[in-house]
Each structure stands twice: as structure tokens, then as C-alpha cells.
């Protein structure tokens, strides 16, 4: 909650034009947009919550459920598509048993489909917390996800 306040304090007397930037910052801090966040942002900008919610649901970037520790983005741009990104996506879905927009039960991974990540030369591309994995093949998915699973285990054992 205080995280939201810190963001809002950076925008005193803000007008509607700051709405998206504020939502982006809140999401950066909290990982998603909670109801409280949306209401508070609306209050701050004197905008009805319905408006804020309407704006937030319009854009791909905003999420309304808590994401996992590792945010997986599978690129579904044209170049990635012709190079088989659908199969990569299927493999991730199978491995994690979640659909895009969802988070695994253990809270480790969340899956997102992006329209184009802008790295078409490396297609098909999967990014995990911004780390790019180029020329992905479905059979590599498990291996790569396992390295992230290991990472959390390592950290826990430390």
C-alpha cells in the first residue's frame, strides 16, 4: 500500500495525462494492478475507477493478478511465428500447466504472450524476466525453465 503512495507522491497535482505512466510505475513496484491501486490512482487523479479500469484493461501491459517470480514472455511476432513460436508456447503451457495471463500455483512462473519483442533476428524468442533466449525450440523449454527453478532452490539453500 505504501508503495502506491510513494509513486503517487512523485506526481503531485497530476492530470489525466499521467495516468498510464502512474499505472506503469505502480505495476513496476507491485508486479500488478490491485483494486486498491486502481482506486487510489483514480482518487489521486480525480478520475472514476471505472475510467481507470477501462484504460488499464485496454493495454496489453497491465495485469490484474499477482505475477510469478519469473515472468515468461513468449514472442508471437511474425518472424517468431514462421519459425515455430506457437510450438514453443505450447511447450511452455504444457510444462507449466498454465495459460497465458496465469501464474503457476507455486508462484514461480507467470506466462505472457507478447505481440513482438523486437528481436526478430533471433526468432523464435522467449524472455524470462527480461533475459532473452534466442532460437528457441520446444524441446529446450524444460531445460531452460529448470535453470530458473534451480536458481530459486540455490537462493533458498543460501
Amino acid at each position: 500500500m505504501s508503495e502506491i503512495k510513494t509513486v503517487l507522491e512523485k506526481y503531485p497535482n497530476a492530470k489525466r495525462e499521467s495516468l498510464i505512466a502512474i499505472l506503469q510505475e505502480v505495476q513496476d513496484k507491485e508486479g500488478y494492478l490491485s483494486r486498491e491501486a486502481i482506486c487510489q490512482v483514480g482518487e489521486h487523479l480525480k478520475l472514476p475507477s471505472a475510467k481507470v479500469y477501462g484504460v488499464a484493461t485496454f493495454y496489453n501491459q497491465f495485469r490484474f493478478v499477482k505475477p510469478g517470480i519469473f515472468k515468461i514472455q513468449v514472442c508471437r511476432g511474425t518472424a517468431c511465428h514462421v519459425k515455430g513460436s506457437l510450438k514453443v508456447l505450447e511447450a511452455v503451457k504444457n510444462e507449466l500447466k498454465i495459460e497465458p495471463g496465469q501464474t503457476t500455483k507455486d508462484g514461480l512462473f507467470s506466462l505472457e504472450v507478447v505481440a513482438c519483442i523486437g528481436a526478430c533476428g533471433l526468432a523464435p524468442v522467449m524472455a524470462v524476466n527480461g533475459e532473452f533466449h534466442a532460437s528457441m525450440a520446444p524441446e529446450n523449454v524444460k531445460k531452460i525453465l529448470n535453470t530458473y527453478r534451480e536458481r530459486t532452490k540455490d537462493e533458498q539453500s543460501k
Partner: protein
Amino acid sequence: MVTIEVNGKKVKAAKDQMLLEALRQEGIDIPTLCHIDGLTPTGACRLCVVEVAGMNGLVPSCAYPVSDGMKILTHSPRVMEARKTIVELLLANHPDDCLFCVRNNNCGLQTLAAQLGIRERVYRGGRNEHKIDTSSPSIIRDPNKCVLCGRCVRVCEEVQGVSAIDFVNRGSKATVGTAFEQGMNVSSCIKCGQCIMKCPTGALRENSSVSDVINALKDPEKFVVVQHAPAVSVSLAEEFGLPAGTDVCGIMTTALRLFGFKRVFETSFSADLTIMEEASELVHRIKNGGVLPMMTSCSPGWIKYVEQFYPEFIPNLSTCKSPQQMLGAVIKSFFAQRENIDPAKIYSVSIMPCVAKKFECERPDMNQHGIADVDAVLTTRELAEMIRYFGIDIKKLAPDAADTPFGMRSSAGKLFGVSGGVMEAAIRTAYFMITGTELADLEVKDVRGLNGVKQAKLNIAGLEIGVAVVSGLGNACKLLEEIKAGRKDIQFIEVMTCPGGCIAGGGQPLNSDLKAIRARMKALYSIDTTDSIRTSHGNKAVERLYDEFLGKPLGEKSHHLLHTHYTKRQVIR
């Protein structure tokens, strides 16, 4: 002026006028689902497209200004094919339940489909499935029938300044919804129903009480009474093809008796009662340094609006219940005692031009010992539905008078139906209360008409009073902000939630255009000029009620039965 060529014919149009308007002036019917007269065009539905020579694509006439020499085809094969396809696409994502739909035979989409000769389902495929939101006592929202024209969103935002709903999501998943897609009951919706008035389909409708009322009428244990609001009698006729502004007050009374109502009362009676209380309250506040400006409290949408958006103004609201609730309260007290009926057996129905009244009668304060003052609220539309249900031809009925003790009214009470009417009635009575004499000219012209904001300065026996009349909460909001910023020259404000007042209420006949609303207003004014009793304090039945039961305005009994209180309201704002 410019000259344009429409379907080969030269036509004059005003410079910078939108094509749609120019074409309609020529008597050419251009279909549209998203256009609202007077608001900025959004160009969403694309049904008003026309062919303009020299342009590649088709042009939306609602959002395209005329220019000199423009050549337009309004019903070319290309245009018709496009319109037809657009409607076919809408139907592909629309339920097939016209027969059961509240808008059957009165639906923008259905009419269009018929006009364009669509007689089969052309595109099949997935449909968006949504839950129907029945959480609100006033408004039911069925997103399955929504065509996303956005008229509800715009009227809620631009006219009422509420924005309880907006577009949600994007692309083929786009829909209209509240914040977090929660029920309307927890949203900031003020239940005015202006969205219903603008909805071309059955996606928005009132929460109907017709079957409850019919069941009550069937129940021999129940003593079913009814009251009808001032604005209903001048609009009901339109539902049956009579000209707008026809007053069917007496005929309506006859019809209601035919339904089986034991008593038919007029809410205009309790409007007079309201004036006695409210004018006394105003005089009291002015004389004793009470909170000013005082603001009227007849319009339940407005009350909810203040409670959730401007709780700091709650002390400014008159504590008077609305006429509906005042009458409800005296029916189950005074009337019940007089007729020796158990109030629990009385089923009290009110007929209102309003859907917010359905919400108002459920407010916590609106009962005595757990017995609701008003049991069911019907809108003008629902009344028309019942008249059809009972097979009554209103054109063949003879008028009849309402019942005692709440059948007599002044024309001041009748004026409650139009924006400025409460103010006018209150001024007439306040003047009398302060001076002991009648106002020389009873008509207060400054507060008449359909303008959203009207203001006047009065001088009552040396006392300077500033008054303001606003309708449409967007206008009310502006005025409240002015007062917050320090404006001090107003002592009394009348606020009506719907623009123009109850004659344009959310429970009135659909497709009410400005012309019809103006005719209803004129009808109320003409009743006022011809009536014998023109002031609320001149209503003998009200006087008798005070003598026999209430005592005096603002007295203890009044306080208990006719006044209420308001509290800050938590909603998803």
C-alpha cells in the same frame, strides 16, 4: 450556406454542418446506433456511412462536415451492402431471443435488421458470453445484448458526470462494464436510468416490478393502492401513439381502477405536502442561520450522488423525504388509521417516470416498524405494459377523479414534473409564509424551460434570495464546485438528476426526443395556467391532513414521518 448534391438532387446545407444532420433535414433516413444529438460524434457504429464522390472508403455522415459541391449517395448498392453486413455482423454476436426481449418491437437493432431485409443468420461463430447484472434494484445490464455503441458510457460521463461504466478490455473481447466488472449495486451508479434511455437494444433495462404488482393485485389479503407522479400523466399517452404532451391523468386513474387498485392517489398531492415542509425548512434555515444554500431532495439519483461524491454537502440537503416517500408514509399511517386497515396488509405501489425511485423506496429509513412505505415502483413504461397486459384501450376510457384523502392537488404540485417546478412551487409558498400575501404573478419565468442551469434573484419583503435550478448532474457538479470555491449568492437550489427534470426521467417512454420532452413540459405549464388551485398552501386536502393528523409543518409527527437523513456512502468511485 453551401450546396451539396444528394442522390442527384441539389440541396442546401449550413456550412460546417455534419452530413447526417443535413441529410436528415432533407427527410432522408440514415440509420445509426451510436449517434446522440448534441454530443460529439464518435463514429463508432459505421451504419451512417454514405458514398462521397472522390473518396476511397465510405464516409460516416455523423462525423463528416459538408463542403460545397460534395456529391453524396445515401443508399447506393455499395452503401447498402456495407450497412447490411455491419448489422449481420452484430447479429452474429447477439442472442436470438427477440421474442422474450424487453425491447421486442422497440429495438434499434431489430428495426435495422428488418429495414435492411436481413432474414437469416449469415455469420455463425463464437459469441461473447456475459453474466447478466441484476444486482441493482433499478437497472439490469445484459452485456450479451450490448452492441458497444457507447451511448450509455457517454451519457453517464458527459451528461451526468458519474462514469459508473466505461469500455473494458479491447478488440473482440471489448465490453461495457463497471470498475472491476462488479455489480452495479456496488458501483457509483446513481440509478438515474439515462443509460436505458440511450440504449438501442435490451442491454440496459429497468428492473421490472410488473409481475410483483400483478401478483399483489391477485392477492385477496392485500389492500393494493397506487400513487402516480406528476410527470407520468403527460407522457404515458406516447406509448399508445397519442401525441406527446397529451395529458391522460383522469384516463389513467380509470385504467388503474380497472387493474384492481383499491385507491388511486396523486403524488402531486404529496408534492404539495413536500412544499409545505420544504418551504418551512427554507424559511427556518434563513431566519435561524441554518446551513445554506439549501438543496432539494426529491430526486433520489441526486441524493445518492451527494452521498458518494460530495458528502460535505449532506447538511445542505433538505431533510424532506421525496413526495413518493411522503405519500407512502402517510398512506400506511394516517390513511391506514382512518380506514382502519392493518398497514402490513396495504401494498403501496407508485408509478414514477424514474428508475431511481425503485432504489429510493429501499433506502433504510423508508419504513415504519419494518413495514416499507412504498412496496413497488413502476415506471411509465411498466404502466404501459400493464395497460396492454390487461387489454385496456385507453383511447376508449372516460376520465375519472383520484381518491380522497390524497386525490386533490394544486398545479404547483403538478409542476414538480419539470425542472424548475419544485423551485416555482416553493417560491409561491415561501412568499406566502413570509409575507402572508400571495405573489402577484405566480409564474417565475426565470426558472422555467429546459436549460440545464437557471438562476434568479428574488426579493421577498426586502429579503434578497438567490436561487438556482440545475438539471443533469454534470451541471449540478459544476455548481457545487463553484460553491466549494466560495460562491455565496445562492440560498436555495433545486436539483433534478435528469436533464429537464422528471419529464425526461429514466422511466419514461423510450425514444423520447427533445420535441416530446418539450411537449410534456408545455402540457404541465398549461395545466398550471388553467388550474383553480395554483399554490401548495392552497391545497385544502393538505391543510386537512395537518389539521387532522400531522399538526404543523416541521412538527414532531412531520419530523418522524416526512423527514429523513443521509449518510456518506461507500461505493467503488
